[in-house]
């Protein structure tokens, strides 16, 4: 356990972008809130209006962090096992009593849990500061909307739920990136895309089927339908008029999260199995490859 903590710490030493990038985003958003033009001349009065406006603003900041995090985390997973073969420092790490399984799992954990957690913390800190700035600058509209304890609790729950469920759902993608990272002698990015693309095209030309293609696309877009309740009928949503526009939004995050269905779905566990196989492959390659 102690070893694992140090292995993750080591990833933070090597990849300082893990915390520098969210810090920069936070500072930029804060400067924008401080000096940008905030122009809200419509009244936000009713509890429903407060809820929708507050929720939109608070979650919008989270979305920015989450998108950047997804891209960075993918890049991290693709690079992490390749980087130390490229600079040959793998020979230093392998001279220490650390199993290759522990190394690969520490990198997987960093990419899927630790990096998202850092972005989550940065998003929270930024949202708090920005909310403070905005509510001081526009007390009539955002003064009350941004300070609803229930909304903040929902924000924490959503982030935690997102981190855990995306880590499980996208395990095959993460495993694939690690496998390429452990295998490639160069051009990791190209290889990670070229292999599935080639499989897709070969399958189409020779068999006329789309198994690979649909497996990948269903995995890519299937997350939200599996992890969140289907609310297409807008049952239980709230509609309110803001600035002469009717806006419909979920009443709360709680009604959206659907952990029981997510964990009961065969697709979830099929993905875990494929991901686990890719990760096993990455460990086997890590055992054998000492050089790029």
């Amino acid at each position, binding site marked *: 356990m102690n070893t694992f903590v140090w292995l993750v710490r080591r990833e933070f030493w090597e990849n300082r972008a893990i915390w520098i990038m969210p810090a920069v985003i936070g500072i930029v958003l804060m400067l924008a809130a401080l000096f940008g033009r905030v122009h809200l001349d419509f009244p936000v009065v009713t509890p429903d209006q407060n809820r929708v406006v507050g929720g939109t603003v608070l979650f919008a900041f989270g979305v920015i962090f989450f998108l950047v995090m997804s891209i960075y985390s993918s890049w991290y997973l693709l690079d992490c096992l390749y980087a130390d073969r490229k600079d040959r420092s793998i020979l230093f790490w392998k001279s220490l*009593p650390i199993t290759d399984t522990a190394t690969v799992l520490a990198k997987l954990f960093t990419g899927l849990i630790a990096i998202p957690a850092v972005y989550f913390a940065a998003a929270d800190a930024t949202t708090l500061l920005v909310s403070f700035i905005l509510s001081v600058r526009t007390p009539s509209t955002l003064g009350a909307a941004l300070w609803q304890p229930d909304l903040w609790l929902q924000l924490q729950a959503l982030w935690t739920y997102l981190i855990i469920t995306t880590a499980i759902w996208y395990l095959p993608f993460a495993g694939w990136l690690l496998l390429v990272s452990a295998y490639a002698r160069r051009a990791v990015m190209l290889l990670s895309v070229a292999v599935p693309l080639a499989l897709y095209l070969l399958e189409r030309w020779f068999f006329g089927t789309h198994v690979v293609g649909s497996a990948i696309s269903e995995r890519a877009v299937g997350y939200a339908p599996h992890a969140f309740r289907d609310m297409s009928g807008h049952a239980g949503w709230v509609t309110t008029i803001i600035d002469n526009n009717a806006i419909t939004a979920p009443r709360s995050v709680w009604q959206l999260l659907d952990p029981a269905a997510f964990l009961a779905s065969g697709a979830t566990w099929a993905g875990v199995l494929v991901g686990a196989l890719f990760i096993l492959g990455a460990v086997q390659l890590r055992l054998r490859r000492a050089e790029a």
Partner: protein
Amino acid sequence: MTALIEARELSKQYGKQVALDRVNFTVETGRIVGLIGPNGAGKTSALRAILGLTSYQGQLRVLGREPFSNRAALMRDACFIADVAVMPPWIRVDQAIDFVAAIHPRFRRERAADLLAKTQIGGNRRIRELSKGMKTQVHLALTMAIDAKLLVLDEPTLGLDILARRSFYDALVNDYMDETRTIVITTHQVEEVENLLTDVVFIDRGRIALDCSIEDIAARYAAVAVTEDRAAAAREAAPFYERRTLGKTVLYFENPDVARLKALGEVSTPSVADLFVAKLSRSAA
């Protein structure tokens, strides 16, 4: 004496290319063994197998363990420097010490600090900022602070200047080596390590060309320098190699009849470097 490393019929292939061809050797505790061969002879393949970095065919036991499936456990008792430039460039010296101290049960932090204090390399420096000689000093300080039974060095001084090389080997012999430790060094710069070795293993094209202790070289090999007129007589004594120098011919013999050679010319024990050239030139012929 117990064998620290025991290889039986050790082979390694990369595709069709045979790097090691059914090699047998043992290394005993307390020895400093030079694994010497030309580039591409199979030295590095042998070391990679010993360190558990690659799979192989045949039997191999290092500190009683099968290395490939037990690398992490093996690295508690063994450590290695696989050429000097493998410290991660981004790490700070104090981070490297913290990390190894946390991970390695046999790492002695004070010793690493003592060794580094002599070098005037600050703990806040990153490896990428250091010269090649300084990187070596850091890596060596980290490694020498580990109480390992086996230390493996693969071309440890490649790319270092003469001062850095000399201080590297001095530190190794004076501050590190004792009777409980064993060192295996590969190099193709034979002269440099000649004086510190207790044993030599010559390796050439995947085969062992010689496996011998330094004491035994004197008993098993002789070189005799003869003048031109006696060269023919000397050749009758079945030398395995000869070369010409300054009007004399030097002939090399295995298990020599020293009395007979003394009658022909000046007999000496060949240096490791000379023996290396003699042995490997013959096999090239």
